């Protein structure tokens, strides 16, 4: 039951996108999001759609998984659409009681919906094709310059990767403890708020004890293997840009330029 909540829902597959350097994918996601918000025209959205479709195709991840992330924002999306639809001033198309739907409102609502959907799918592409560990590695390396101004980049990255590693373990543990207590007649569903909170005690006590024990064991194991912070620490698999990464950067640049042109002078003119 708890397994349905996935964080960092990596989907293993053998595609170029999976093999790309995580920094490229981070940059790519950023570029895509910027392009969504910077260029506002029907032509630009056609361009973004083509780009997204191509990337999804290359990733070899079934579309079903890409769309899963959308479930969590359906409510937010409806809210945005409704607000934009009714609260934008302009040429009235029709009225619903005291609410007026305008041409501009319809346009904004549609664009906002598309943006939100693309935003979620775009970031899903990254998390689905990159393991959480690669992602933190990429972030650490990308943020390295911040180390010069005394930002503890390595420590932050280490904490992130440990946290990411522990989330599924703790979820699994929670699942097991819940089952063990349900076998003793515990009830985690019914009752009022206070009763519910009380009912959580048989779950939380074993969970915390186990989390502390694990944290303790991990700290011990790290020290036993000579871990002493980031200074002078090398990587087993250092991130190095390869040919495909450079090509990917070029393609991203090309995408930005094309989008800029398309947005300025129309779709077909832009492509020529």
């Amino acid at each position, binding site marked *: 039951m708890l397994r349905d909540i996935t964080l960092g829902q990596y989907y293993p597959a053998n595609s170029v996108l999976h093999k790309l350097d995580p920094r490229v994918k981070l940059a790519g996601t950023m570029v895509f999001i910027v392009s969504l918000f910077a260029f506002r025209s029907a032509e630009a959205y056609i361009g973004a759609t083509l780009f997204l479709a191509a990337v999804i195709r290359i990733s070899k991840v079934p579309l079903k998984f890409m769309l899963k992330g959308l479930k969590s924002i359906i409510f937010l999306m409806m809210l945005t659409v409704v607000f934009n639809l009714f609260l934008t001033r302009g040429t009235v198309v029709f009225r619903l009681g005291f609410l007026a739907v305008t041409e501009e409102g319809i346009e904004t609502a549609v664009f906002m919906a598309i943006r939100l959907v693309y935003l979620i799918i775009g970031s899903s592409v990254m998390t689905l094709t990159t393991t959480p560990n690669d992602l933190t590695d990429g972030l650490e390396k990308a943020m390295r310059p911040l180390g010069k101004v005394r930002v503890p980049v390595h420590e932050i990255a280490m904490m992130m990767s440990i946290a990411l590693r522990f989330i599924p373990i703790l979820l699994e543990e929670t699942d*097991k403890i819940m*089952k063990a207590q349900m076998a*003793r007649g515990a009830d985690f569903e019914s009752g009022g708020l206070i009763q519910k909170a009380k009912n959580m005690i048989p779950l939380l006590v*074993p969970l915390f004890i186990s989390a502390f024990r694990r944290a303790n064991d991990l700290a011990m194991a790290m020290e036993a293997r000579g871990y002493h912070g980031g200074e002078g620490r090398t990587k087993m698999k250092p991130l190095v840009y390869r040919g495909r990464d450079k090509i990917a950067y070029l393609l991203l640049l090309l995408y930005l330029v094309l989008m800029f042109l398309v947005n300025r002078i129309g779709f077909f003119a832009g492509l020529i």
Partner: protein
Amino acid sequence: MAIRIEHLNYIYGAGTAFEKHALRDINLDLPDGQFIGMIGHTGSGKSTLIQHLNGLLKGTSGAVYYNDKNIYEEGFEMKRLRSRVGLVFQYPEHQLFEADVFTDVCFGPKNLGLSKEETESRAYEALRLVGLKEKYYKVSPFELSGGQKRRVAIAGILAMNPEVLVLDEPTAGLDPKGRDDILDQVAKLHEEKKITVILVSHSMEDVARYVERIIVMNKGQVMFDDAPRKVFQHYKELEAIGLAAPQVTYLMHGLQERGWKVPADATTVEEAAGAIIEYLQKS
């Protein structure tokens, strides 16, 4: 009060990239009062299967009947089933949470809505049955040894007076004495309270001494389901799936190959010794 399982399948993470078909077409009849051993290699689906017996997992397809009532039917009292089929999990750490042992054992009966007196008398009875010394009743369960924790965990389930007791590897991580103590205790329970006991284990040796029926699991399927001496006849197949028959089975088969006329189906050392002595006296 019997449990019947029909065409049960279970898939973990159905519809995700990590689908795992953990149980395949399981059909079992678990009548009252039996002492059953369930054996299988790591990952063969034992823990998954027993969680279906009290409805903690719901089969992807198939059905489970408790006293001829389908437990997946609308309106079935799941909570009552859980008190009738007691399931002790692999790790006692997953269920101990109270400040002292006695209060922890009271948790189950309290959830059944029993009075304070009834709850406490059941807790005492359960702790006595698992053979935990009285001086530990007021100790924090986290200060106990592994074997003692396991006893408390079993008592926590026994206090609910189940008709079926399912133990998932109750001897994992215990020394030989601790292991024998717990298993002897469980066997005594079976005798005294006439409850059905299902003992999940890796070790044939453990199981052979106590049970009247063995269910062998392999890759999510029931491979053998028979009396121990019958199951051990297939010792070659058992080896092929990473299990082994008890040592005496090998001894008796070895003797047979050398021309000794001894029965090969002895399951315990005592039985084998008796058969060998009998043979030697005759010849």
